[in-house]
Structures are given as C-alpha cells and as structure tokens.
C-alpha cells in the first residue's frame, strides 16, 4: 500500500500461510492495514473504513510532511490451487489494485487492465473472501455482535454460504 492513511511510504505485507501476528502500540497503524485490505477488495462503507468521506483514506499530512494526492493498495493472490472464479480460474497469479485520487474517486485494475468495482467485488465474493465476508473481523465486530438488536445481528448470517 502507498499513501493509505498513516502509511505514507510504500509498505508491503507478506501473508504466508499459518498464523501471522500484527503488533504495535495504540494508534501505530495496525487497524489501518486491516482497512487497506478491506478497501482494495471493494469496501465503500464510511463506517467500515472509519472515514466520513473517501478522501480521508489518503495520507493527510503531518507537521513535517505534506499530504498526498493519491492512495493505492495492491493485492497479489496466488492462484496455483485454481480457486479463483471464472474468468480467472486458470491464471497463476492475480493482481488487483485500487487507487484513489483526491476528489476523483477510485479506479480499479485487475492484472493491469481497468476494471469496475463490481468485477473486483465478484472475484472475492465467490471465494468467500471479500470486504463483506466473515473472514475480515474488524476491531468493533465483537462488540457489535453483543450489543446489536437481534434483527441487525441476523445480518451476520448473510455472510454464510
């Protein structure tokens, strides 16, 4: 990711199989990484992204460094197990990028070619992943399950098969 919230410079997160812990002091940026992954998968809800408007996702500057004009997150997925949905089933690796330019909205690319948000969301929806899937559990989710009304809580089942 680059320019995404507090991650001004290019940052690479390598997710191998198994258990990877993400640690650090309060406010250092851990949840921002979680949000970057949700965002590149097509998440648009201000509540889920903790940002009142899309521009707040772009690095907004500090006293020493000026704000940026764009933010980009790229996710590379290894498809050697051929689990991706049509039309990507036989591609070995897929690279999805989402870039936002200040006041110009987001653009998506799949393996370098322009794509629509819908295309990206579909790739993930089929494989059970995706910003809406139960696979990404944000910091407020547990509290939300405990505190929400039964009718709202029922929505968690929509993420099941």
């Amino acid at each position: 990711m680059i320019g995404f919230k507090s991650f001004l410079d290019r940052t690479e997160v390598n997710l191998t199989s198994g258990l990877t812990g993400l640690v650090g002091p309060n406010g250092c940026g851990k949840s921002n990484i979680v949000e970057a992954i949700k965002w590149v998968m097509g998440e648009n809800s201000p509540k889920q992204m903790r940002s009142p408007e899309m521009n707040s996702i772009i690095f907004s500057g500090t006293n020493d460094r000026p704000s940026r004009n764009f933010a980009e997150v790229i996710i590379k997925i290894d498809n050697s197990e051929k689990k991706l949905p049509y039309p990507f089933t036989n591609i070995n690796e897929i690279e999805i990028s989402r870039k936002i330019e200040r006041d110009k909205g987001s653009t998506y690319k799949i393996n370098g070619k322009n794509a629509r948000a819908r295309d990206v969301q579909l790739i993930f929806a089929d494989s059970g992943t995706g910003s809406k899937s139960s696979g990404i559990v944000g910091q407020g989710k547990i509290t939300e399950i405990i505190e929400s009304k039964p009718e709202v809580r029922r929505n968690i089942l929509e993420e099941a098969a």
Partner: protein
Amino acid sequence: GRNRLRSSFDQVNDNFKKIFTKLFNGGNAELKLIGSDDPLQSGLEIFASPPEKKMQSLSLLSGGEQALTSISLIFAVYLSNPSPLCILDEVDAALDDTNVSRFCDILKYLSDEQDISFLIVTHHRLTMAKMNKLLGVTMEEKGISKLLSVDLEKAVEIKEAS
C-alpha cells in the same frame, strides 16, 4: 431467499455448537431465529451455557464469556464458506489467559487443517507467542507508520514503547 437462509442457518448453528464447546472446553450453546416465521424478518438470538452454568441469553453472560461466544459465532459463519485469508483485529481483548490459549489452539488447528492464512492483530503476549511470524508496526516518525518483521522479544519491546 428464505430457504437458503434457513439451510445456511442450520449449518452455521451446527458449526456454532461444535466451536463453542471446543473454545469453552465444555458447555453448549445454540442460535435461534425468533420474532417472525419469516426468517428474513426475524432476529438472531444467541443462547449459551458455559460449562456448569445454565443456558442464558448472551446478554446475561460475563464480558469475556460474551466475547468468546461471539468468536464462536464468527468462526461458525466463516467456516461455512471459508476463504483462504482470515483477519482478526483484537478479538482477544476481553479474554483471560486460559481462553486466549484455547482461542490460539483453534487458530492453529484451522490453519493446519484448512490451509488458511490468519492475520491476527493483538496486544496479548500469549497470542503473540503462538504466532508463526510477527509483524510489528511502529510510528517512530510522527504520524507515519512503518512495518517491520520482528521476533517475539522485539515485539514485546515494541509493545512496551511508543
């Protein structure tokens, strides 16, 4: 629509009961759709009985018991359609050491059995100790986050400094 919700509900409920009993090392729990015959209008109620305690609605359990029961539900839904990547942001915050360790056991089991990559954000030393790999985030330069690979001692050190 409705039939799909009903059958996915049954599968999630099955998963939920097994995972709950594993995480609590006993006891049992169940989900109920209430309030309407139409599942699309109903509410999801959660009932749980930790070992040796009686079955109660989620709201009557202790803070940590509520958290562990919610984690069981999250896993139950997730495992009905598991994706290769699962991210959990500080879900262990309210758990005592024993429950944290059972939570980690289930992560290990799922990651071995189902080849899932887990990214676990945590402040808990015990959880860190059970990870295969640790990534540390720091904000040495004010307002700018940096990511680095760390080992357990360095992680504890980062945890204790800011």
